[in-house]
């Protein structure tokens, strides 16, 4: 293909090239079509429908009827449960995310040593996070922490009176928080990868300079890990805002709504009261809240995140 010589056949060549490009493009689309179709049907379509439904009154038994912004107005002015569940969710996020990241980082540090068989431990610590939002684990949690459960039994051996882990409005949310914190595996694996990426020369230099373990950690390891910390922070925050299974299965949102996370509010309105339009509006409000938080985290990340290659600054 002679690009330099303009001949009479040039337009034909160009046409051939653009045809090829197009057929390559089409082939590409074909390759990703399974995912694309799934995305269109299972993600984009429900996304758009729920947005439309949020402006209707839809009880599933009768066809939807348009009500404009009434759902949104009702949520903000007529629903004390909305504010209660927002408060509970914020507390939950503020507890769960830092705890989870700290645990993940600590365990990753311990597991980053090069010992024989260390991979077995890494796998074992990663396993809980595969169990994900599993109902079975939530039931297990309930069994562990109910008044006659295993935890209280163990505590009784050291003469501690039974604690109402799940029955006390003050403790229940914390107990629920422990479940996702226990599933820190995925964050841990990312931290492990991040730790591996810290250039060894930096550690050697620090050792030569006589830096203590703690200083090495705070002045070298942590700053080098900040991109991974940011990623984990954002992903875990998004995830935490959407918490539902643990609250639903373990305490049902109680006692006295102390574990009534936003996901429960949504569930109740959608599947208990069958107010689909209202619930759709709730879910879009959550979407905006999560977006705002993510944006905030990303914006402030400039100050504390260090990228080795100097890129990635917002």
């Amino acid at each position, binding site marked *: 293909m002679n690009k330099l010589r303009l001949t009479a056949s040039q337009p034909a060549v160009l046409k051939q090239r653009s045809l090829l490009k197009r*057929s390559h493009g089409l*082939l590409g689309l*074909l*390759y990703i*079509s*399974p995912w694309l179709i799934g995305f269109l049907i299972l993600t984009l379509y429900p996304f758009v429908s729920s947005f439309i439904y949020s402006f209707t009154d839809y*009880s*599933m*038994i*009768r066809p939807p009827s348009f009500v404009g912004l009434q759902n949104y107005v*009702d949520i903000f002015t*007529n629903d*004390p449960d909305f504010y209660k569940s927002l408060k509970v969710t914020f507390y939950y996020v503020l507890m769960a995310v830092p705890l989870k990241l700290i645990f993940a980082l600590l365990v990753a540090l311990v597991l980053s040593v090069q010992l024989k068989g260390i991979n077995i431990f890494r796998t074992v610590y990663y396993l809980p996070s595969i169990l994900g939002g599993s109902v079975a684990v939530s039931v297990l949690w*309930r069994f562990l922490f*109910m*008044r*006659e459960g295993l935890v209280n039994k163990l505590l009784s051996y050291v003469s501690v009176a039974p604690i*109402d882990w*799940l*029955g*006390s*409005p003050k403790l229940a949310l914390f107990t629920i928080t422990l479940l996702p914190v226990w599933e820190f595996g995925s964050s841990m694996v990312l931290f492990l990868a991040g730790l591996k990426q810290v250039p060894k020369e930096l550690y050697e230099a620090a050792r030569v300079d006589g830096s203590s373990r703690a200083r090495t950690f705070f002045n070298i390891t942590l700053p080098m890990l900040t991109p991974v910390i940011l990623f984990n922070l954002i992903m875990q925050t998004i995830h935490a805002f959407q918490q539902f299974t643990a609250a639903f299965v373990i*305490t*049902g949102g*109680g*006692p*006295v*709504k102390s574990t009534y996370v936003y996901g429960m509010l949504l569930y*109740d309105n959608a*599947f*208990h*009261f*069958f107010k689909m339009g209202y619930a759709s509006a709730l879910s879009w409000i959550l979407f905006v809240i999560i977006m705002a938080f993510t944006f905030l985290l990303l914006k402030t990340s400039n100050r504390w995140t260090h990228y080795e290659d100097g890129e990635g600054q917002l």
Partner: protein
Amino acid sequence: MNKVRTWMSALCILTLLAVLFSGCSSNEGGNASAPSGGAASGAGDAKVTLRFSWWGSEDRHKALLEAIQLYMSEHPNVTIEAEYGGFDGYYQKLVTQFAGGTAPDLTPLSVDWIDDIAVKGDLVLDLYSQQTNIQLDAFNKEFLEKYAVYNKKLVGLPMGVNGMVAIYNQDFYKKFNIPENTTWDWNAMYEIGKRVHQQDPNAYLLASLDFRGFLQPYVRQKTGKQWIQDDKTIGFDEAVLTDALTYYKKMLDEGVIQPISESSLYPDISQNIAWQKGNIGLVFGLASTITKLKAQIPGLDVTMYPVPADAKESAVLVNPSNPLAINKATKYPGEAAKFASWLLTSPESAMILRDVYSVPPVEKNAQALADSKKIDATVTKAVEIALKRPGNPINGISSNQELAKLAEDILQQVGFGQQTPAKAAQEMIKRMNEKLKTIK
């Protein structure tokens, strides 16, 4: 060469896609084949497939499956696909199925769903239209009219006669010297419950008091009116509600009821560990739950729900256990009606079902079962007791889920001491009025 390879890969991809989608559609085919397969072989002694869905526990599943087998062996052209599970989430699934057009042909309805599904939603068949296929005269006409007919529509066939009673642990009674013939009212509960707890701090007369089992009946006993009247006004005033909530707080404070922090984890009494250990005296429950409870604690007996001497109405819950309804969109209304009728009126079916739906609705079947001792005598006794002083049927709007949840929340707040009964009553009425404005 390039072009050939490109086309080969394109062909492979298309094949993969085709396999993927044929996999998807054959799943759908499995669900949809029932109606579409039937439609193809339209009239005559055609093959009919009905989907019958229900909830319950193991003994109910076994009994219904046996009955279905019997029916299918007697009617070889009918195939009945059984879909069953627990009660938790059944309503959510059912409504979603109705919305998506995949609801089963036959399903029982819990009494508080009737308003939404049968009346407002108009999703089930008016069984009066299938009179030729149903043995309507086998049922007690009055019972039908009172409990299964709404807006002149027969929404379902009662699967049994159910009633709310006080189910007590006989060993508990003996341990605390409570005479078996105690007639309960709310004062007696308080006095005797207090004594029980003083005697044994681990024992409680009651596990919990909730909206359906206590607050609604208590208030109705005082007012004689519906919880929410048909004109969407509240059927009680702040004073009555404060009285009820004060009583509730009193019962908790004196240890008549198990502390909420313990019982709130067990919405189902059979999961409550204190009850399993025999530390709870009695529970309010429907006759249909007795067999399930007896499996854990065999020494159970029943007595009348607490009704004060000056009650304006007994508010004792009586209902047809789950009217069996037929989906309005069913392709085989006639066959569905015939099956429903056989299931609930034929003597052979009654012998198989026994008491899994409490006492059978057809009197002579109930009698036959009692005579041959196939039905638990406690269940029969429970229904008899409840029918001696039945309360007025609860109207649709009183079962509204949002209002019920609100009441439960307020009860919890009072129980945990977060609000005084007076303030709680005030708030509840205010929020109920707000909600009622938005309910159609």
